[in-house]
């Protein structure tokens, strides 16, 4: 991985009246990465992206793309960037190919580029149909083609799977996943969908209420979170008291389940031995890695109602324990 950065921001701040939508954000997006910019709806993702593209001006701070100041080199830098902000910007009266042609004329591209991006997003067959008749997934793919038309070094995608059905989400995810390797492009991807980010991103930034709560690789994020042992016991109160006396950090999950912050199998075995030795029967023991969702909840103080949960993160034991 190159040590050069595609995006750097310093103290980026934007207010709307009394609301600080983006608050002192320092982004650091390495070239060649897929950077997942994760946050609940209204966290400041789109405002940040619009500042990255020079669409709105920050009240404080600055944006650097490829280590150059955006405010000084706007046109030159935007020439190296492709973007799709929220919904794709399309002319419904034109065909897919004509929509690409409008942008091609504006950026002085070649006809071959149009054919190439249509091929990349698998829209060759529908290219000559009016966009008004496109499905949401096709429009989204055409939006991606528009962003790719400039052969960008940096691709900025804001909620690219918004409004797509599961098949469309899968297709878009596959497209995004293969872009860095196939086209040598850095991808900056915003989303409120944990699954989307976890499956494609090498780096993650988590934003909440305009503030960057975490930034780094997925591994660094996981390393920040302790493993935990989830137990099913017949006497949860007694088990909790026993373990706390032994120095463990214990929390009740409700019912007969308790959770202990612990690391590794040896800790799990020791906990089991202490409980059995203390006269508590253990009928379930599981060592759990925290999921991205867990980390997200921790970092954003559990704004669950704003996050679309990822079903397969919630395993049977945890679902049970939550009751």
């Amino acid at each position, binding site marked *: 991985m190159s040590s050069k950065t595609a995006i750097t921001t310093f103290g980026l701040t934007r207010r709307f009246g009394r609301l600080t939508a983006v608050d002192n954000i320092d982004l650091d997006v390495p070239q060649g990465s897929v950077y997942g910019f994760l946050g609940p709806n209204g966290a400041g993702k789109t405002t940040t992206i619009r500042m990255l593209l020079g669409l709105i001006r920050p009240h404080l701070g600055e944006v650097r793309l490829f280590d150059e100041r955006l405010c000084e080199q706007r046109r030159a830098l935007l020439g190296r960037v492709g973007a799709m902000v*929220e919904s794709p910007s399309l002319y419904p009266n*034109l065909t897919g190919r004509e929509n690409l042609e409008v942008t091609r004329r504006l950026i002085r591209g070649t006809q071959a580029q149009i054919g190439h991006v249509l091929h990349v997003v698998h829209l060759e067959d529908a290219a000559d149909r009016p966009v008004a008749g496109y499905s949401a997934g096709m429009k989204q793919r055409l939006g991606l083609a528009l962003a790719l038309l400039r052969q960008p070094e940096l691709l900025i995608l804001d909620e690219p799977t918004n409004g797509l059905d599961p098949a469309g989400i899968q297709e878009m995810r596959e497209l995004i996943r293969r872009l860095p390797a196939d086209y040598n492009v850095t991808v900056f991807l915003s989303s409120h969908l944990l699954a989307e980010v976890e499956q494609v991103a090498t780096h993650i930034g988590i934003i909440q209420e305009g503030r960057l709560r975490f930034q780094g690789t997925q591994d660094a994020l996981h390393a920040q979170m302790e493993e935990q042992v989830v137990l099913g016991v017949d006497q949860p109160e007694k088990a909790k008291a026993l373990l706390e006396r032994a120095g463990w950090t214990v929390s009740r999950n409700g019912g007969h389940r308790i959770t202990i912050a612990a690391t590794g199998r040896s800790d799990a075995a020791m906990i089991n031995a202490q409980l059995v030795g203390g006269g508590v029967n253990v009928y379930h023991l599981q060592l759990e890695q925290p999921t991205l969702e867990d980390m997200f909840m921790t970092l954003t103080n559990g704004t669950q109602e704003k996050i679309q949960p990822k079903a397969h993160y919630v395993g049977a034991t945890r679902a049970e324990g939550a009751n």
Partner: protein
Amino acid sequence: MTYLRALWAEQLKVKRTLALWLAPIAPLVIVGMQMAMIMDRPEYYQGNPTGIWQGYGQQIVMLWGLMMLPLFITLETALLSNLEHTNQQWKHLFALPLPRGAVYMAKQISSMAIIGLSMVALYGWIVVGGLLLGVLLPGLGFEQPVPWLLFARYVGISYLAGCLLISIHVWVGLRWHSFALATAVGIAAVVVSLFVFESDYGKWFPWTLPGMALAAERQALNVWPQLIASGVGGLIVALVGAWNVCRRDVL
């Protein structure tokens, strides 16, 4: 070159739009109305001292300049601007590596071009309508030679006198996202213009300029004050409008 590329893109954007179709249809409505009036009461038009062609042409351009042109400019610019508002094109266009002013000016010039196209259509429909009346109502005087230059003068005056209106409505259409607002401004202004046309204020009310210029031409008065006001005013509004729209945040 960048500005030419932006204009080239505008040419494609209007494909299959109502905005393009309106260019020949709007003047046809006015010419059709005038033809219907003549056919309904041909006796009113007999013995016209200035010649039937001139009277017929003057009535059409007055109707056009006072009513249809301001409304047509309103609708046309609102439709063209709406192309950019419907799917929030600004966030795409203004993130491209080209000056924002190029996008604005391309819209200004394409609006002027389409309205210019309607002027050419008006010219054509006036002649075709008159020739048709010559066939339908022989003896009314339409057998006389077509006053080509006179009609060209009428159409040219109405176009130049409408330049300020085009600039104002391009700015209103691009500055605000609402199609309803853009059309409401034009309709309200046309209603006001009917009241102020005869007053002292009417001389400098932008929406009366085409009518005032054509009325001056009809009375063989100097039309240049209106044309200069429209041309210079149109240029100033276009520049200020571009500055205003281009420095706004794209939210």
